Structures are given as structure tokens and as C-alpha cells.
């Protein structure tokens, strides 16, 4: 537990929650990032602008963070083949299951959805299993 950051993580979580409430209140939309991204490529054009604006905000936040708070994290020894495989599984799984950490996690749990609770339990479990294999078996 050497890297435990309770205050920053709790504060960041609250900001994520507030952002989700903001999007719901102002746009009537659920802040599920996998769905927002997928909709940008797969939805009719009229539905694209708010999605693009939200995702642009996400990326700009990163640029601002690196400029004013902390440099971008670097990771060594993680091959691009793994990145591609992981991305493919995340894209496939989130669209099949209808949500990710934000859609099922932050928003789905927030509206007390049983579907989302099941999804969160499942992806936490397989996530832990995959990390175990990657770090301690392979």
C-alpha cells in the first residue's frame, strides 16, 4: 500500500461524479465514455457534436494537467501489441456489455441499477485475474 493516495483519489472521484451530474443535468446524457466514443463513430451525424465536445474536454484536461500539475506518466516495457490487444478487448467488451467503468460504474451504480452492479462485479473480477496473469504468471 506504498502508493496509497486517499485524499487525491477521493477528491478526483468526486470531480468525476460532479462531471457526470453536469452532463446529465445540462445535456440529459449519461457519462459513459465507451458509449460516447462509440456513438461518435457509429451514430447518425446529428448526434455527434456533444460527444465530440465532451471527448475534446477530456483530452484538453490532460494537456492542462501535464502543463500545470504533473508531467505525463511514462511506461516502459509494455509493448504496443499488448496495447492493441487490450484496446480491442475493451472496445468489444464495453459495447457488448453496454458500458464501462463510467457508464456502469459511476453512473449505473449511481442510479442503483442491478445490471450495472453485476457488470462492475464481473469486470473487477476478470480485471484482477488478468492483472494477476500479466504480472505474476507471464
Amino acid at each position, binding site marked *: 500500500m506504498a502508493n496509497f493516495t486517499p485524499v487525491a483519489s477521493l477528491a478526483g*472521484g468526486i470531480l468525476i461524479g460532479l462531471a457526470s451530474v453536469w452532463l446529465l443535468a445540462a445535456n440529459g446524457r449519461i457519462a459513459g465514455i465507451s458509449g460516447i466514443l462509440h456513438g461518435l463513430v457509429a451514430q447518425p451525424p446529428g448526434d455527434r457534436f456533444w460527444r465530440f465536445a465532451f471527448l475534446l474536454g477530456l483530452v484538453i484536461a490532460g494537456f492542462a494537467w501535464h502543463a500545470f500539475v504533473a508531467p505525463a*506518466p511514462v511506461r516502459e516495457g509494455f509493448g504496443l501489441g499488448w496495447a492493441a490487444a487490450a484496446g480491442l478487448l475493451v472496445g468489444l467488451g464495453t459495447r457488448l456489455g453496454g458500458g464501462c467503468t463510467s457508464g456502469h460504474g459511476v453512473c449505473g451504480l449511481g442510479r442503483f441499477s442491478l445490471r450495472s452492479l453485476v457488470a462492475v462485479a*464481473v469486470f473487477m473480477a476478470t480485471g484482477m485475474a488478468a492483472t494477476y496473469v500479466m504480472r505474476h504468471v507471464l
Partner: protein
Amino acid sequence: MISAFGAGLLFGVGLWLSGMANPRKVLDFLDITGSWDPSLLLVMGGAVLVTASTFRPLIRKKDLKFDKTAIDLPLVAGAAVFGIGWGIGGYCPGPAVTALSNLTVEPVVFVAAMIAGGLLAKILPPQQAGR
């Protein structure tokens, strides 16, 4: 849609502040048999604290419908596959998108593959994949 941009900006700052946008920290959370870092429990806890206290009245006011309630195979299989990808890379969709600002190749490859995976889900099963 200034509000969507603002919400994205705030969401992104939350991801970086919380540590979610750093895949190593995410993997330290998922690695329960290693040097476990429970921080991300607090990220989810803080976020759900806010949504749980506000979402239901807002959803009623906006008259939003969530027609899917069944715990079915696409839900469980999809969540399982997503979790495996998450546990390999340490990225879920939000952190991957905001990590495009790192200006390194890794998040670009991940996000491109994630979009491809989403399109694959659309053509793969006969039943309609979730939204």
C-alpha cells in the same frame, strides 16, 4: 455545447487527480496479490457518492428511460471481456481518451483498437449490443 465540453474537462481533471489516468496505478489496484493500492476504491466511492445522491431525481426530471434490465449473456460476457482488456492494459475508456494528451504512441494504439473493437461488437452478435 459548452456544457458537454465543460463536463468532459472536469471529468478529465478528476481522472488525472484521482490517479485513474495512470495505468500503473490502475494495475496496482487490480493487483490484489502484489503491493495492492486501494486508492481506486476511493475514486469509485467518491464518484458514486455524488451520483447516487443526485441521479435518480435528475433522471425522473429528464424523463430518461433505461429499457434494459435483464442480466443477460451479452452483459456478463461483455463485462468479462472488458475486464480482461482493462487488466492487461490498465486503461478503461475514459483514461485512454484523456491519455491521448500524453503524446505517446501507446494511448493512440489503444484508442484505435478500442474503436475497432466497438465496431466489431456491432457486427458480431445477432442481438443488438448495448448502447
